[in-house]
Structures are given as C-alpha cells and as structure tokens.
C-alpha cells in the first residue's frame, strides 16, 4: 500500500503529472507578472513548455565522451532529486510520510544546487566555473537560515517528520520560520534581488553557459520542478488542512503556492540584483536573525 501511495505521490500528485505542468505554469506566471509590472505583454501561456520541447529537439553539440556523460547525468540527477523532494511534500499530512523524511527532503532539495555547481565546473567554461562558484557560495549562505528555520520547526513540533512538523509546529515559530524560508527561495530560483548566481550581465548564463539543446532542457526542467518543490514546501507547512477533504487540501496547496509565486515575482520585479558578498551578508545577518529568533521562540515555548 505504501509503495502504491509512494508511486502515486512521485508520479501523479504532487509528483510528475502535477508538478511538470505546475512548474511550467509558475515559470510562465513569473515571466508574465514581470512583463506586466514593466508594462509589456509578456510571453504566451505555453511558453516554458515550448521552450522545453524546442531545446529537447535541438541537435546536441558533440563533446568528449566523459564530459558529455557528466553534462547529461548532472541535470538528470537534479531533475530526479527535485521530483523526489516534491513527492515527499506533506500535502496530505495524515496520509503518508515517515519519521525523518524532513532530513531526506532537505537533502534532496540540496542535490539540485549541488548538481548545478558540479555541472558548471564540468562544462569547463570560465563563466560556467564562476557561476558554479557563486552558486556554491550562495548555497552555503542561504542554507544557514534555511536549516535553522527548519530546525526551529522541528524543535517546536518535536518531530523530524514533515507531516508532524506541518501539523504540530507552534504558530509564532511557524510564522518566523516561514518568513526565513520564503526569503531563501529567490536564491534557489535565481530571482532578484538574490540572483547573483545567474547574473547574465556579468557571467553570461552562469553555470549553464556551456549547456546546449537537450542538456539545457533538463536544467530548465529541474528549474521548473524547483519552483514547485520550494513553493510547495512553504505552502504545505503554512496551511496544513489536515481534516478537510482531499480536494480542499489540493486547492489550498495550489492556491498558496501560486500566491507565493505572485509575491516572489513582484519582489523580483521591484529590486535590483545584489552582489554576491551583499547577498551572503544579508543571509548571514538578516536571514539567520529571523531564523534564529524562530529557534529561540521554539525553545522558550518548550
């Protein structure tokens, strides 16, 4: 039974069948909101999907065998791990999960950026390397508040299971921790003001500079899935509706995710890009400050 349920959550909801269109929709929504904020029409509705198909249909550049292999496997690993992370999301807190799945979720979410770092280095491009090192620094920086915030939730709920955290974390802790988590999302999604890792005007396309056609398509796919995974994580922790019927839970999950996309998009449209050091400093001071206060509140209430 658990295997079937696991497969369903990996392949159907909130997994592949839901997450792919949802990820493309969120990417489109972000671009559309950005365009509207600037007074433009913006991309047509199916844009990210067509981008993906087009890239997949391009002829791959011939590369040395090992490099070509790595450049295919790394984005694939990013796609797979992000999909796994999505499958673990506690949309139905009472239905699934196992104790300690939060640790697994965090590790799976981290595989994506790690692959991006490695992918940048194996592409043997100077700018890929710079993008990768920036990505690595940023990963280090945002993970401080990210992990502290999650740990505050765990401390408050007294459980390492996602479902347990979603249901049991105390509200003051939860609010503070979620603020810290939301602040981390723009870094992972390369959104302003924390988009130093993909600063086109400085380092071309960062770690994906040398990726072409199908290999780039996989990165785009991983990116789309990251949207779902991260907004979904916040959505499922912010409004756990444990007792409602399943359609209600799905609607709440989707609605909160989309609302989060809207907020992040407007935030991105109204800011400039901070430099690497500025971003790192922000996360180590402000981001960690919020997360630490969540932790303190959690311990005080215990």
């Amino acid at each position, binding site marked *: 039974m658990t295997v079937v349920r696991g497969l369903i959550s990996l392949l159907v909801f909130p997994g592949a069948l839901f997450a792919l269109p949802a990820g493309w929709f969120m990417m489109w929504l972000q671009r559309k909101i950005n*365009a509207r904020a600037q007074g433009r029409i913006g991309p047509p509705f199916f844009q990210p999907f067509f981008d993906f198909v087009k890239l997949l249909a391009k002829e791959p550049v011939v590369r040395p065998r090992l490099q070509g292999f790595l450049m295919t496997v790394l984005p694939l690993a990013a796609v797979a791990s992000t999909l796994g992370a999505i499958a673990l999301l506690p949309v139905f807190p009472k239905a699934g999960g196992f104790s300690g799945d939060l640790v697994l979720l965090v590790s799976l979410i981290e595989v994506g950026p790690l692959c991006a770092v490695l992918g940048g280095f194996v592409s043997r491009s100077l700018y890929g390397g710079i993008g990768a090192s920036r990505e690595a620094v940023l990963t280090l920086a945002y993970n401080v508040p990210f992990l502290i915030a999650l740990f505050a939730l765990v401390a408050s709920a007294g459980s390492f299971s996602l479902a347990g955290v979603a249901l049991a974390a105390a509200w003051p802790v939860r609010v503070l921790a979620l603020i810290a988590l939301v602040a981390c999302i723009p870094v992972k999604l390369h959104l302003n003001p924390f988009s130093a890792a993909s600063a086109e005007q400085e380092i071309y396309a960062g770690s994906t500079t040398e990726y072409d056609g199908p290999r780039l398509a996989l990165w785009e796919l991983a990116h789309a899935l990251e949207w779902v995974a991260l907004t979904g994580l916040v959505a499922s922790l912010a409004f756990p509706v444990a007792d409602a019927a399943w359609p209600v839970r799905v609607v709440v999950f989707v609605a909160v995710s989309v609302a989060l996309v809207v907020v992040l998009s407007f935030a991105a449209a109204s800011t400039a890009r901070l430099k690497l050091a500025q971003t790192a400093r922000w996360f180590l001071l402000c981001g960690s400050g919020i997360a630490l206060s969540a932790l303190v509140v959690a311990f005080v209430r215990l």
Partner: protein
Amino acid sequence: MSLLDSLVRTARRRSPWLFHLNAGSCNGCDIELVACLTPRYDVEQLGIRLEASPRHADIIVVSGPVTRTTLEALQTVYAQVPDPKVVVALGSCPASCNMFAGSPTVVGPLDRIIPVDVYVPGCPPRPDAIVAGIADAVAILCGDVPRPEPTHVPVVADACATGGLS
C-alpha cells in the same frame, strides 16, 4: 507529418532565442535591437528571448559590416550555436558593408563569411521591422518557409590571415 513532428515545429516557431553579435556596427542597429525588448515592441510576446550564451541560441542576429578583428569571433560564435539555426543580417552593413565598403579593415559583407537567411533593410531598421524580420527568420527555423539557397562562398576564413582582402 507525425504528431511529434508538428509539436517540434510549433515549439520552434514559438520559442526562438536570439544571440546578438555586433560585428563592428555603429551601435545604431544594436540599440534598436535593445529597443525591441522594451514595453513598446516587446519581443517576448513572440516567445523571443535575448540569450547571453550562443549555446542557447536559435537565431544569430548580426549587425555591422564585419571588421577584421571580429571575423574570428564571428566564426566561432556561428560554430557554437547548435543546429538548427538561422542568421539574420540587421541593416545595410552586413548586407553590403554599406558605406564601409572598400575599407581595408572591413571583410564583409556577411554572406561571404557565414550563410545569411534573412536581411532586414534599414540603417538602422525600425524596431518593428526588426521584430518582423525575426518573425520571418522563425518561419525558416521551423520549416514553414524553405531556407534560401546559400549564396556565400566561405573563402574569407583565411583571407584575413594572409591579408588578401581589402
């Protein structure tokens, strides 16, 4: 035509990514291409994106009469763009070297170096003409319109090294 084929065609039609290459232009065409991104013309409505890396691009937009010093980089960039690709020549300079014809440091026109598919007339073309020209290039890219027969004679590759061209 299979379903997959038509899907790929549609995807190519609706997601052309550009790489802009300034081969010694006076900036006129370049700023008009930048103006294409702005609210009034907004090429993103056609799914067009200006890409930073030639590896991501489908359409190479070239401006300028191709100077000796940009020749090598131009050929590298052309080779870096994965197939299928289309080349758009922006304005009079890549089409004919314009007023720079006869200059000892200009090796154009562009079709002597790489095959050109679409010429957009103007000096510089208006942004709406650039958008329309790119739309014509997209029709070639996705196969709706046959690619024009190449007229270029790729002899310029080593002419620069020997200094044979003037």
